[in-house]
């Protein structure tokens, strides 16, 4: 199953106008009334929480109403439908996409990807001992530069039973665990991408189930800094960052948002293939950030697993 990664995240929110403005200031582009997209066309859709076109929310009231994955071809759609139809209802929508619930109650969609292939350069760096990436007389920064989100990167869920979640995405959808935090959850990538993760689970009590954050890939660390600085200058409040993660190596900067979750900028994530062996580390500041320019002691909320849920799955790497 060539699932590439998240294509669209669909939200039902309390304050639509605030979310629209936030999305624009974050650097996304409006595409129709409800959709806001990155340069490759992946993005988010924003509706009022009581919009009748949306599926019912999780009992926790989390604003995430649907996570839509892009796949390579109709054959992938057919394969996913065949697999999930074994034990649940799979609905084919008018646009040809399919939808079904995962084992934790998150609504998923699968569509043939419409993302544009981008032909852009990554941030270039010069260093003694290395061939110059950026040639003479080429300046790296401009005071007015603001990084633009390039592609929807990953989504993170609070889940009451991460082994159950991990098993579903691994066994039913072909995701691979690239790394994990002990007793917290796995970082996972689908088969159609080499990104370190497009999905991460955080074990929490059941009343927290929902979206923890989502993020878009930027062109490099400087883009993360300029986009984040632009947010600060517009009055938005940082939650965590800027800094650089260890698992995935991605640069990060998180902002609180009117979406009821954090919204991140990330850049320069590690790439992995099937020859990679997943690492495991205890959670905490020491293992979640190489450095942080504004230090935070706690990096993610956690809670005990429900009875019978703890530990990684037997089959897990």
């Amino acid at each position, binding site marked *: 199953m060539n699932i590439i990664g998240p294509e669209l995240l669909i939200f039902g929110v309390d304050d639509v106008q605030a979310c629209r403005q936030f999305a624009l200031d974050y650097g996304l582009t409006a595409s129709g009334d409800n959709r806001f997209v990155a340069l490759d066309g992946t993005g988010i859709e924003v509706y009022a929480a009581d919009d009748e076109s949306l599926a019912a929310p999780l009992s926790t009231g989390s604003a995430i109403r649907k996570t839509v994955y892009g796949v390579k071809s109709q054959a992938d759609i057919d394969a996913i439908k065949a697999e999930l139809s074994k034990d649940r209802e799979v609905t084919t929508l008018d646009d040809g996409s399919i939808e079904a619930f995962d084992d934790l109650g998150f609504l998923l969609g699968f569509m043939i990807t419409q993302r544009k292939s981008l032909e852009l350069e990554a941030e270039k760096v010069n260093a003694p001992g290395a061939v110059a990436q950026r040639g003479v007389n080429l300046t790296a920064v401009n005071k007015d530069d603001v990084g633009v989100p390039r592609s929807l990167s990953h989504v993170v869920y609070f889940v009451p039973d991460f082994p159950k979640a991990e098993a579903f995405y691994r066994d039913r959808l072909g995701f691979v665990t690239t790394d994990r935090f002990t007793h917290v959850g796995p970082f996972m990538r689908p088969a159609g991408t080499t990104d370190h993760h497009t999905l991460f689970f955080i074990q929490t009590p059941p009343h927290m189930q929902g979206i923890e954050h989502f993020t878009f890939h930027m062109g490099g660390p400087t883009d993360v800094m300029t986009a984040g600085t632009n947010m600060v200058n517009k009055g938005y409040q940082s939650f965590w960052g800027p800094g650089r993660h260890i698992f995935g190596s991605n640069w990060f900067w998180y902002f609180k948002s009117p979406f*009821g979750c954090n919204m991140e900028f990330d850049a320069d994530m590690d790439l992995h293939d099937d020859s990679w062996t997943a690492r495991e580390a205890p959670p905490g500041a020491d293992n979640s950030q190489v450095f942080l320019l504004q230090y935070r002691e706690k990096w993610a909320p956690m809670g005990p697993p429900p009875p019978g849920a703890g530990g990684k799955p037997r089959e897990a790497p």
Partner: protein
Amino acid sequence: MPDGIMLCALDELSNGALGFDPFNDGRDTVFAVFRNGEVYAYSDVCPHYGDTSLPWKKNAYLDSRGEHIVCAAHGALFTIDEGYCVSGPCRGESLTPVPVTVKNNTVWLITSPTGENKK
């Protein structure tokens, strides 16, 4: 002797909530909400982490209907009159109240004799 630290004129609270920096921390550490003739004030710290401020932008402490205090990090909802979390990660926990009083149409943070309001 002053009654405490002046936060704002009562009129300024009429549209909802405001954040304040009464101890000169360089960021808002206290916020106040006017509701049903009363002023309620709390430390601007979500009990979920214990070190995160609530709003996604300055003064954005309430939901769109003005019914609940919101923490924008993960959407926790708190009652305005008690600061009690009714939904979200810190459900069952409470914001830390800050004593305030209204005199001459001015909202004052009461400076406690024991110094618990002070840094």
